[in-house]
Each structure stands twice: as structure tokens, then as C-alpha cells.
């Protein structure tokens, strides 16, 4: 959904990175900062390989939280365009689960706003991930595993 011209949403399908950057770009911008959080390959203590993360969300609350974060960022920095997207469902190794894209006239604000948004999203948003292992087993991540 778009509010205040921002694109803030949970998505069930793969994130379209190029489209999000295009959305966040602005003629008055001198910078677009983009952060992608991706599924990192892991091997646990028992030698199992991680193949994917399964994301679940309390959707209505998470989207409301993400919109509030976007509004907060706009109060702190001179943001032109903003996209804040998070996946729900299965995200394979190397694929993005979260995307932040912020355009500003100057790069310092873009970096700062981008960092604020991803840090706060990870700390607050009602989203959970479960590690899916090659042997078919899975475990909920307990805390801010990243």
C-alpha cells in the first residue's frame, strides 16, 4: 500500500528490487540508499545446512508499525521517496527478505534513514523467521538473529 507517497508492505512474492529502486528514485534526489537483508547460508552445530527461512507476520500490526517507522523517518530526515518491504513465506539462501530504499537530496540522510528503518523494523516489527534445514526439520529463531 502507499501512504504519504511511501510504499510500505508485506509481500508474499519475491521482492522486485529494480522496481523498488525505481519507485524510490526522485528527480530532486542526489542519493538512493538501498538495504537488502538476505538469507545467509548456515551450518548448525549438528552439521545441518540451512536452505531457507520461513517468515510469518502479524500482518496488520507489522504493516502499521512499518508505516509509523516511515513517518518517523520522514520527521527526522529530508526524505523524498521511501520503500519499505518485507517478505512473508519462504525465502531461500541469498534471496532478499527485506528491502529498504530511501532517496534524499544528499547521501548522509539517505544512509541514516535507511539504517534507522532496518534497525527499528528488526527490533519491533511483529515478524518471525523459522530456519529450514536440509534434512527437512525447522527451528524458530529466538530473538534478533538477523
Amino acid at each position: 500500500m502507499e501512504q504519504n507517497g511511501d510504499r510500505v508492505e508485506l509481500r508474499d512474492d519475491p521482492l522486485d528490487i529494480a522496481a523498488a529502486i525505481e519507485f524510490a528514485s526522485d528527480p530532486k534526489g542526489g542519493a538512493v540508499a538501498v538495504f537488502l537483508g538476505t538469507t545467509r547460508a548456515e551450518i548448525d552445530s549438528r552439521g545441518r545446512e540451512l536452505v531457507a527461512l520461513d517468515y510469518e507476520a502479524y500482518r496488520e500490526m507489522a504493516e502499521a508499525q512499518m508505516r509509523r517507522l516511515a513517518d518517523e523517518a520522514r520527521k527526522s530526515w529530508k526524505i523524498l521517496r521511501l520503500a519499505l518491504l518485507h517478505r512473508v513465506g519462504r525465502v531461500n539462501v541469498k534471496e532478499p527478505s527485506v528491502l529498504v530504499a530511501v532517496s534524499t537530496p544528499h547521501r548522509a540522510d539517505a544512509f541514516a534513514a535507511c539504517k534507522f528503518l532496518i534497525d527499528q523494523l528488526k527490533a519491533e516489527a511483529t515478524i518471525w523467521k523459522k530456519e529450514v534445514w536440509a534434512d527437512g526439520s525447522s527451528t524458530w529463531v529466538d530473538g534478533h538473529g538477523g
Partner: protein
Amino acid sequence: MKVRVKMFAVLRERGGIPELDLELPEGATVAAAMEEAGKRIGAIVDLLPRTAAAVNMFYVKPTVLLQDGDELALIPPVSGG
């Protein structure tokens, strides 16, 4: 009064249900509702000390009073990103 309890992630999976309705006395706190949910769903009891709560989509403290029709979400440690 009636309060709808929603559960997510490990709580939903352990408990085997995504939500349940609780009948609570007027003036019941969030903490009391969580205790009642634990009585109804024994499999989640050991997780409750590390579970946060949201009422009508805002995080609240356990001492907050519930009202009829509230939606109480039980929120295990979040791990988005």
C-alpha cells in the same frame, strides 16, 4: 467480557491454534489473560515469561487493563529482517 487472543510463530505452532476467545472478569489485566491462556493451552506455558503482548495492535505492559472486545496478541521475541 470477551477477549480474542491471537498467537504467532512458536506460540501458534506449539499451541496448535492461531487464536482463542477468553471470557474474563471485568478489569482483567493483560497478565491475567496470559495466565488464563496458559491454563487453556498448557503447551505454551513455558514460553509465556518471554512473550510480549499487544492490545489492538499496540505493544502494552502486562499491567494494562483489558476491555470487552479487545484483541490481545501474544508475541514471542520478534526476528524479522
